[in-house]
């Protein structure tokens, strides 16, 4: 249902990416904390993966972050998250979670 809505938006040339519903937002928050946290740290200060704090990402483009999260980085430990987080959700995650404290 939600997916169809997003598709419609895109088809209509809408620029605003769809916002995940509140339940999904909560899931993404906990995914970031727990599952990204396994490599980037619970507080995102880094571990096996680099820090993901707003200041560490400030010079990096949304497009690059989106690409990295969706596709992973082959040859490194960063896996692709495409199977679990779609592109719109990733955009939301970058804007609302990664770029904020």
């Amino acid at each position, binding site marked *: 249902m939600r997916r169809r809505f997003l598709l419609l938006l895109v088809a209509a040339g809408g620029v605003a990416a769809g916002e995940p519903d509140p339940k999904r937002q909560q899931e993404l928050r906990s995914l970031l904390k727990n599952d990204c946290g396994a490599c980037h740290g*619970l507080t995102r*200060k*880094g*571990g096996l993966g680099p820090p993901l704090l707003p200041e560490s990402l400030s010079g990096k483009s949304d497009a690059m972050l989106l690409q990295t999260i969706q596709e992973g980085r082959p040859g490194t*430990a960063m896996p692709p998250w495409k199977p679990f987080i779609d592109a719109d959700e990733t955009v939301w995650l970058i804007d609302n979670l990664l770029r904020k404290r």
Partner: protein
Amino acid sequence: MLNRLLKTSILPLLIYWLLGGACFAELRGTGDLGVVIERERGSVLIIETSTRSILGRVGKLGDLSHASVVFSRDQRYAYVFARDGGLSKIDLLQNKLVRRIEQAGNSIGGAISQDGRFIAVANYQPGGVRIFTSEALELMADIPAVYGDEQRSRVVGLVDAPGRQFVYSLFDAGEIWLLDMQDPSRIEIQKFTGIGRQPYDALLTPGGRYYLAGLFGETGLALLDLWHPEAGVKRILPDYGRHDEKLPVYKMPHLEGWAVAGNLAFVPAVGRHEVLVIDTRQWRLVKSIPVAGQPVFVMARPDGRQIWVNFAFPDNQQVQVIDAEDLTVGRTLQPGKGVLHMEFTPRGEEVWISVRDDNQILVYDTRSFQEMARLPAVTPSGIFFTARAAKTGL
């Protein structure tokens, strides 16, 4: 004024002292105690396995994601290594924090020396190893993991080894370092370079002869025979999975939970949903056992009859049990969402399993697979029992 102060402060103190004094007067051992990490709260629970109960909680320990614990040889104190570089010493008998220091910016774990005198911490930031006295947590030595052009590497897979040694791997440098602490005032370092790309964790075989580092950046594992360090580091299973596409790894596997049954060692494959069975006499692959996901911990029940396995996201709601004789998965359990760790009671009749998202610790009987107890814990992760104090490499 003084009078009031006395009344308000001394009376409760007196009562506390009388009651507290009575509590501490009860003599007890610590052999059936342990700690459970509560990762988001930054606290640990002190638990007792005999009664399957929680005795207390100690907090303010910092960022405990990926925290680990070692025990003093008298099994009274737990040393907690926090992600944020914190090192805490906890008194299990008095249920209190003895001392906490912030020794680095980002760390991954540690070890206690064979003689119990020193605590070594593996740091990511600044990359290296720092060594402290176990008594007072005073800095004894700082050993930067420098390689190449004055770069610093993150350190992983730090273990204690016989002969008052520590062994660890340099993730970014692809090296293994052997620290000889025989004379603590003159620590000697032996470096093994070019051991393979991105060693991500390591383990020591029971007894402490072989140090085995898992490689993320290439196939196989790096093996150092501590009886013959002069022979250098050897690559084992060099061709395993070389020609296959790797599956994505959503959580790095661990090697600390060494699993040995007779002459067989069980280790998680990387990027494959398999547990590898290795013959430790020739260091050759015997079998790869298909399992439910990317294995994270692969742990043998202390008698070696069963191997318990948990998994990375998105398969982390289950646990599988491998039969050590026929080398197949005999059981699949569903403890709940976010199974992070398992720990056997000292002789293995029960296993404690932490289930992060359910905020529970489950205790199973390892023979009947019956659930014996559920204990509340806030986002529990690592579980560590004091029996580890007597085990080299844990």
